[in-house]
Every structure is written in C-alpha cells, then in structure tokens.
C-alpha cells in the first residue's frame, strides 16, 4: 500500500460523508447477500464480489457529472450500484431472471444501463479498455464535454490492448480516465509475481499520459484524485491515469479458496484499512452523525438489499421466447 495520496483532513460536508457511507455500505451488504444467494444456488456460474473495494467507485462517482460514462470488467456490481442503477435489477440479473437489467441474458459479468451511461460489465480481461476509449472517442467527436471512466484491474494492466489504447488515447487526446483498480492480485497471482513495474500508472509516462497513485481505501482521497482527473479530461488535455490501490477481501470469484495469501493479511486490511469503517470514524469523531443516525442508515440499506434479494427470487425466469430476441437490432424507421 505505497499509495502517495492520503487525505486525513476532512473537506467533505456531513451530508457528503453520510452519502459515501451509505453508498459504500449498500455495495458491501449487496455483495454479502449476493454471496449468500450464490451459496444457495440461486446465482450460478461466475460471481466476482467487490467487497473491500467500495471506496473506489463511490469516490469516483462523487467526481462525475450527469452524462459521464463508465465501463468496467466482470467485477461490476459495485460500479452499477454506485452509478445509481436499481439494486433490484442488478440482483435479478445475478439470479438470471426477467427483471434483471439484461432480462436474465447477461448475468453477473454482462450488465448494462443505457439510462445510467453504464456500458458494461465485460467478461474478457482488458477488452473494456479500448471500448472505454471508444466511448471517449465518440464524446470527443460530438464535442459534448463528457468524460469516460474506464476501469480495469492490475491483472488487465498486462494485456497488450491496454497499451495500444494508451497510445491512441494520448495521440488523439481522448477524454478518458483510465482507472486501474489495483487490488494486488490478478486472480491468484500477486502483483510482485506478475508485473514488472511497482507503480503501474507510471507506464503511462511512456505515452505522455499523466497520472497518480491513490489510496483506494480512503474515499476522500479517491474523490479528490477523481476531480483532478475529470478536470484534466474536461479541459481537453487528453487521458489521465489513476492507479487506485485497493484490496479485495473475498476470493477472485466465489469458487476461489484464496490460498495465495494469508488469512492474517486479509484480516489486517479489514481491521486497519476498511474504507467504510474509516468514514464511520470520521462521521462519529467529527460529530457529524450519531450512532443512531448510522444505525438508521444500516437499517435502510438492509431493507433495500433484502428487497432486492426478494425481487431477484420472485422475478420469473425469462420466457423461452427470449432465447431468440435481441440478436439483431431492427433497422430504424
């Protein structure tokens, strides 16, 4: 956790802090519930949980404006909740039901929302990187002032297409924020064993792309770095890289026994660097909220998450006719 940027002083209002607490807690509780439903056999296939990384998306969404776009990998539940997608629709997609965002046809790794400018949910490691630059290309072409948050992991950072994309994004000045969510393990391989550079963001220097490392367990540090990156892109200065040092508490996917790291390493991170606990402490120590205020938020989140699970169980499986729809779009009239 050699992150350069840590914010200890609070320049966020009580309302903002409470919102971050709430949004991060929603992701945490939602993911715990998803893990539970997976164990019950209600969610199948691959399911990659975001627990531990909540401050990354919540901090960056705090720096985004309406109309900005986001795209990510298959570890996507947190991004969807953070950009305002309906937990019911997300959970029902996980269970493969009609009420899911993709009508049950995409699953955990392939979800989209045109309304919330969320462009997936991509299952091929690093494929979302040129796709995200393409979204930014479209915005620059239209000259609409929008930026695209293109998220990928430390594992994806070793794919060739990332650097093909860095080259073109820099060459063409695309308004794209490359967000490297460095959770330190590419499935079961640590960064030390897979990556020649200690600081992945510095690879951008070869392309003339500025960037920085950020403490991803500190939502305020993430937000502040996000604002720098957004301002850079919106000013027409081209892409920006944020390497956000974070940590996932759970395995790579539900079927990962996580034997590549010690239980103590995970526990130490949970005890000492938990992003939700950090905001909770800021709220209580700064007298911005009482225990009762936070309990009320916990209760509200529990209700939302339980409702999403109920919805995801009750929503019917897609009609078999859905097998044959959405393969081709109809010609515009």
């Amino acid at each position: 956790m050699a992150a350069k940027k840590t914010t200890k002083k609070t320049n966020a209002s009580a309302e903002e802090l409470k919102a971050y607490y709430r949004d991060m807690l929603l992701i945490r509780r939602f993911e715990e519930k998803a893990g539970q439903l997976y164990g019950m056999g209600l969610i199948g296939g691959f399911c990659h949980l975001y627990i531990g990384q909540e401050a990354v998306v919540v901090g960056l969404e705090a720096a985004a404006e309406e109309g900005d776009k986001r795209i990510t990998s298959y570890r996507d539940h947190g991004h969807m909740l953070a950009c305002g997608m309906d937990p019911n629709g997300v959970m029902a997609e996980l269970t493969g039901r009609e009420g899911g965002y993709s009508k049950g046809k995409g699953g955990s790794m392939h979800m989209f929302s045109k309304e919330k400018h969320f462009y997936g949910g991509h299952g091929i490691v690093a494929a979302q990187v040129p796709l995200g630059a393409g979204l930014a290309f479209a915005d620059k072409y239209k000259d609409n002032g929008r930026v695209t948050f293109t998220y990928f992991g430390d594992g994806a950072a070793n794919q060739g297409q990332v650097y093909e994309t860095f080259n073109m994004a820099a060459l063409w000045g695309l308004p794209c924020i490359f967000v490297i969510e460095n959770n330190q393990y590419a499935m079961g391989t640590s960064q030390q064993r897979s990556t020649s550079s200690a600081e992945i963001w510095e690879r951008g220097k070869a392309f003339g792309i500025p960037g920085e490392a950020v403490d991803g367990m500190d939502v305020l540090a993430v937000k502040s770095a996000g604002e720098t990156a957004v301002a850079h892109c919106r000013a027409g200065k081209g892409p920006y890289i944020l390497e956000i040092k974070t940590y996932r508490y759970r395995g790579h996917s539900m079927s990962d026994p996580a034997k590549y790291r010690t239980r103590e390493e995970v526990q130490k991170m949970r005890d000492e660097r938990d992003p939700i606990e950090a905001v909770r402490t800021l709220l209580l120590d700064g007298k911005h909220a009482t225990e009762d205020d936070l309990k009320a938020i916990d209760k509200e989140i529990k209700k939302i998450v339980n409702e999403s699970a109920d919805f995801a169980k009750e929503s019917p499986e897609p009609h078999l006719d859905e097998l044959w729809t959405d393969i081709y779009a109809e010609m515009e009239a």
Partner: protein
Amino acid sequence: MAIEILMPALSPTMEEGTLAKWMVKEGDTVSSGDIMAEIETDKATMEFEAVDEGVIGKILIADGTEGIKVNTAIAILLEDGESADDIDAAAPQKASAPVPVDKEQSSEDAPAAGMSHPEPQVDTTPDWPEGTKLKQQTVREALRDGMSEEMRRDDRVFLMGEEVAEYQGAYKISQGMLDEFGAKRVIDTPITEHGFAGIGVGAAFGGLRPIVEFMTFNFAMQAIDHIINSAAKTLYMSGGQMGAPMVFRGPNGAAARVGAQHSQDYAAWYMQIPGLKVAMPYSASDYKGLMKTAIRDPNPVIFLENEILYGRSFDVPDLDDYTVPFGKARIWREGGDVTIVSFGIGMSYALEAADRLAEEGINAEVIDLRTLRPMDTGAILKSVMKTNRLVTVEEGWPQGSVGNYISSVVMQEAFDYLDAPVINCTGKDVPMPYAANLEKHALLTTDEVIAAVKKVTYK
C-alpha cells in the same frame, strides 16, 4: 427467528461436498465474515464465512461428513434473544430454494426440422428498374462512392484504419475521402488492429457509426475478440439496450503470391456468429449497394472484399441512392440442368464454368449469395427444386465451409428433390504456398467446377 445455515454451493459446478472441519462450536458468537467451516468442493477446500450475526445454536452435520448436498441444513444460527431451547419449538426460517425450470415449456420459435418441403418464399424483384441508366465502374470506385454517399448523408459515419487518410488507402479505396471529409472523419490509425477495433466498437456503443477498415482480414485475427465478443454479442447480453452499429471491412482471401499468412478466406468463420451480418459481394453494383446497406444497418456487419476484384469493372446503376438489401441472392444466369451457388470471387469461377458448360449443352443456373448472414437459402432451395443438382463454389477451406452449411440446409429442406449428392468446390486443405505453380493448385479452378457439374449431372 433461528436461521438455518445451508450447505453452500462454492463453485459453478458443485452439487455436493464434504464438511471437512467446523471452525466454530455450539454456543460461539459469529459475525459477518467469520469463518465457520472448511468445506471441500470438487475443486478445492474452501473457507465458509458467516453472513448473518448470531450464536451457533446447533451443529446438524458433523465434521468429516461426505456427500452433503447443496442447500442441506448444516447448522442453526440463533439471533438476538433466542436460546438453543427454542430450536425444536419453532421451525427455523427456511431459506427459499431456487425456482425450478419448467421443462415442459417449449419455445414456439424453435426451428422446425420437418420432413415437408414447402415452396420457399423468394424475393425475385430486380435490383434496379428496367431502363435505368448504367455506368461502368470498378469495384474500387463503387466502394468509395458507397461510403462517401453515406458519409454525406449521416455525419455519425466515419472511416478509420491503417493508411486510409493521407496515403489514400493501402488499396486506394478511400482515395479523395480525406479531402472531402477531413481528418476528423477519415482517420489514420497506428498499426494496432486489436486496439483500434476495440475503439471502433466503443465509438459505436457511444452513438457513432464507424467503418473500420482492416488492411486485410488476415490482420483482423488480432482483433477478432472485439468483433465477436464485444461487437456481436453486446445487444444480446444487454437485453437489447445497446449494440454496435458498424462495419468492419477490407480485402479477404487470396490475392496473389503473398503466402499463407496473407491469403485466408474468413467467410465461413464470420458466417457462424449470431449477432454479425456478413456480406461478400462480387460485382461493383453489389459492392456499392451492399456497403450503403451495411452502413445503415444497426448491427455489426463484416464486409468481405477481394483485392483481385478491386480493379474489375461492372455495370452500376446511375441512381442517387442505390442500395441492395441483405439476404437477397442474385440470379446471374438462369438454367435448368444444375444450380451453382457462389459468392465473392468464387463467382468468377462459377460464371466462367457456366459459359463453358453452355457450349457443351449443360445449362447451369448461377446464384450469387451476396450476403452469407442472412443467407437467402430460399433462392437456393427454389433453384434446386428445379434443377435437382447443386454445386457450391468458394475459395475457402473444405472443412466447415460455407458449402458444407448449404449442403446441410438442402439435405434437410429439399432432400427428395436431389438427384445427385451435393458437391462443395473449395480451396485445397493446405496453407497457401508461395511458389507460383503450387499456389495455382491450392486455389480453386474453373476446371474443377466444370468437373463437379459433370459429376452431379452424370455427364
């Protein structure tokens, strides 16, 4: 209310497992994230964490028990204020089980494999009205005109690829387009197929209508993940919310003396992918009309061109807005003795063979498919029902060829009409050699088409 802790599914394929070891005992307090037990799945030993907070009231399955089915109750968790004595008194809250799939439900749209052979519905309207003024144009010029007309019509359309702008196109297809449309819409890319194909797909997601040129489709193998996984599948995976309206185009198949890595025909590969449309035209009018349709189509289109055809001239209708619909074959020559089906450069062999066969009194009907997905199988079936004989012609490899697919359709839909086995004429089953004499033998020849026709007509 007490909560039953159920045997979890801990991998995509796990149906049962072994409870290797309890890490908690009755009376222990657990909270979310605490490890309760080690469970052996079919792949690994996994730690099983608590989700809810409470006290372990009762352990129902002992350490070392094997073959425990997923969703079997393994322990009972007590919540605030409950005691173990309550367990027998109150029925624990049952976790809901997955809703079973109704296996009886069947799809009405499933393709029927029937034995009846209804008359196929075929669109036989001419491509242009009688009396339309025609002009001679090369395939190269027709392609450029098709793209340019659509770029004038829709400012979301842009062209990107290697050497398309300042160099005027590696094969001079985009000659003059940079001057007309400017560097914003005619974009030179670095040599980075995987990257620029992905950027093109992202731009299509973002509301533009990209034309992505590959200098040849051989190089598109570096980009095929974006063509298939990103472009073709997104509409389906998003439940219809977003897709990739765009064209991937460039020369495909053998040119001349460029060896194995630059000479592959990808028709059969792309034709296999649901979500893609695939055009492979032969004549200049089809290059133009199909390109305009491809650009307007709201789906990803693979447009397979041919370098040898670029310089050939054909009649092109002199119309303001000439388009050719997808999924409509063109009958180049009518005949009653045999049906020859081809597409792209294969049509050169098919038409030459038909000319020579006519001299021997064999009248071949020659069909140009023009698009492979959708494929006008109706036109093939209708013709086979008349001629009772079929030869397919393509430059690609024999195993898993376009002709193989056509043969299966004809066998299922018109078996009773066939008087001879269908023959698929293809390129030879070898990488393309460089030596002039070997290359000639590796490619399809008109003589082979003629021999195949004679075989199916028993001449």
